[in-house]
């Protein structure tokens, strides 16, 4: 069960994502200039500032050669997890609905956040408890979609994570912290599960996201 973690110029969380994935399986880095996903069973688009976040966060990375391969991989049902900048990239690539706007508080914010797992029966949350405590660190994390899209996301169970009451520091609409696509194989979230996989850093709650993906990959190959 091998994860592939993308690496763009300006990525900064790819090593933590690699370590997190290795807690539950095998993992390797995939350079942005390649179109060869090397047969991985899941892709992680990591956090950071891909291509300097020039123009808009994720706007340039979305056209990287590796993203062409990831878009095909996702269309064929492959599991794709986007964290923070990775979430922004997946939205720009139209693999996920909506967009990320500057935080309502206008600040880069780095803090532990409490999350509610809204849907626990998905390929990304199956191993998760009802609530998670993991870090978030971003200045462009305010989830936005138009009202009709938000209604549809909620009705179809695509909102997987919400900020707990009083925890929505970035002003995300309807407290949304993480959403999946309609097919259920692409998931993006602003907080960082890969930074919460060892007691050393205060929480291991992020591990359940990777463990859920491992279970889904094993199920697919069973």
């Amino acid at each position, binding site marked *: 069960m091998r994860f592939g973690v993308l690496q763009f110029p300006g990525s900064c969380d790819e090593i933590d994502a690699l370590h997190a994935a290795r807690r539950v399986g095998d993992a390797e880095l995939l350079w942005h200039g390649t179109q060869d996903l090397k047969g991985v069973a899941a892709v992680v688009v990591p956090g950071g500032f891909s291509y300097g976040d020039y123009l808009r966060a994720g*706007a340039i990375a979305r056209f990287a050669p590796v993203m062409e391969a990831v878009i095909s991989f996702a269309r064929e049902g492959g599991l794709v997890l986007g964290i923070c900048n990775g979430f922004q990239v997946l939205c720009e690539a139209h693999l996920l609905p909506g*967009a990320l*706007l500057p935080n*309502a508080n206008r600040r880069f914010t780095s803090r532990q956040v409490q999350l509610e797992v809204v849907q626990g029966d998905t390929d990304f949350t199956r191993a998760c408890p009802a609530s998670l405590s993991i870090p978030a660190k971003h200045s462009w994390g305010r989830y936005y979609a138009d009202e009709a899209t938000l209604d549809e996301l909620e009705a179809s169970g695509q909102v997987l994570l919400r900020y707990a009451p009083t925890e929505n520091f970035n*002003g995300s609409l309807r407290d949304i912290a993480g959403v999946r696509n309609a097919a259920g194989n692409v998931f993006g979230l602003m907080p960082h599960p890969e930074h919460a996989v060892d007691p050393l850093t205060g929480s291991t709650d992020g591990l359940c996201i990777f463990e859920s993906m491992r279970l889904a990959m094993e199920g697919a190959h069973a």
Partner: protein
Amino acid sequence: MRARVLIRPKAGILDPQGEAVARALPALGFTGARNVHIGRLVELDVEDPAQLDSMCEKLLANPLIEDYEVQLLDPGA
């Protein structure tokens, strides 16, 4: 052909930069300035101005959250 693309946050979308500037102006004694919005300006030379809309839709703007306006700068265009 020289072109200028103005990109603005869509109406109704919270613009924290614009709000911050709107609050800073009165502090400097400039009263009566309202509805401040901050966007981006892209200037470029293009061989085929007909491609500008497509450039905006695909890369320069995110149509979900931004409006764009294309201006052709060469006289007589």
